[in-house]
């Protein structure tokens, strides 16, 4: 089967993982900019990171015939230093112009603070000015519900952005309905301890249907699995879902959403 993983952090994965993706049928991936596990202290650190996302990872992926795309943005965990954040936002447009960049992401909230909201609002404005796709990171655990609601309000207040060009990632049972009802896409993340499991992701398809849903591994430097999408496809199979529906969820849906960016092509 063909699979697109729309959210995976290959900077944190080994070259062996590229091999596993390739031999398993995951031939197109997109990598959002994220928190490095520590706060970066200067703008040059972000230049290096964005260079890595737009040059180094596509080159690593191409050795395995995998198409690598990315998203550029400032993660909310690095929004409290407003001066540094503003300086980083100023360099984002030059990277958005690069050929494998699909839009702003992952941007959003973390602990739902005032500075996080200010920085998110600025990044949404950049996306609106340039008509970019947006990949939203919704907060972790107890902060997810509030952060999702604050982010929905912020985006709906920007009339230049169409909800159909925004995906809210890391949605869970208590946020899916509010995201979907407003016309946004939603992403389910297969992250064992803090997000969802294959069983719960397939439950979401049972309950909410297969429209406007993308499923991703979000594999990174923590407990995670770059083949989690395939394990979830297998979970659908185990429950008796037809192959056409599985193909829709893991290939056609992400292709439809991502193809709204004219730079995106897949196998």
């Amino acid at each position: 089967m063909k699979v697109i993983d729309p959210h995976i952090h290959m900077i944190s994965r080994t070259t062996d993982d590229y091999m596993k993706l390739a031999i398993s049928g995951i031939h197109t991936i997109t990598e959002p900019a994220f928190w490095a596990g520590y706060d970066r202290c200067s703008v040059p650190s972000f230049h290096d990171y964005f260079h890595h996302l737009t040059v180094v990872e596509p080159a690593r992926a191409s050795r395995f015939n995998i198409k690598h795309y990315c998203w550029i943005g400032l993660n909310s965990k690095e929004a409290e230093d407003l001066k540094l954040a503003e300086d980083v936002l100023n360099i984002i447009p030059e990277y958005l112009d690069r050929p494998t960049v699909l839009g702003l992401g992952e941007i959003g909230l973390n602990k739902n603070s005032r500075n996080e909201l200010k920085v998110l609002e600025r990044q949404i404005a950049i996306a609106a000015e340039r008509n970019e796709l947006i990949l939203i990171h919704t907060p972790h655990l107890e902060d997810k519900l509030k952060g999702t609601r604050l982010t929905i309000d912020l985006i709906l207040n920007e009339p230049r952005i169409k909800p159909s060009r925004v995906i809210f990632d890391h949605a869970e049972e208590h946020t899916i309905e509010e995201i979907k009802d407003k016309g946004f896409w939603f992403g389910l993340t297969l992250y064992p301890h803090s997000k969802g499991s294959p069983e719960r992701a397939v439950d979401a398809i049972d309950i909410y249907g297969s429209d406007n849903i993308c499923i991703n591994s979000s594999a990174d430097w923590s407990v995670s699995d770059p083949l989690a999408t395939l394990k979830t496809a297998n979970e659908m199979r185990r429950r008796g879902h037809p192959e056409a529906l599985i193909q829709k969820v893991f290939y056609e849906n992400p292709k439809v959403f991502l193809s709204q960016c004219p730079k995106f092509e897949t196998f």
Partner: protein
Amino acid sequence: MPSERCPKSAKEILDLYFLENRARLLDIASFLDRIDRYKESEEAKADFRYKAFIKALKLLLETDENRTKAIQLLFSDQSTEPIESAVGLKAVGAWEGSMV
């Protein structure tokens, strides 16, 4: 969307998932036993995360449907205003405000 519902019966779902969820239930029981057994157990039980966990277990039995969503909401920050600063803060899995 009935056409996208799992085509299996509820009995088939029970057959498919019983053993793995029996194991998960035992993991939860042993987690609570472990807290009982280790030193300073009472201190751990006074923690808002432990209290939220016990409340969630009760909710599991008292709720007739949408149990997953009910538990997610129980663990969630229900406030609506942004906080002043996120410096030094991280998510812990439960909201202290729901335990007061």
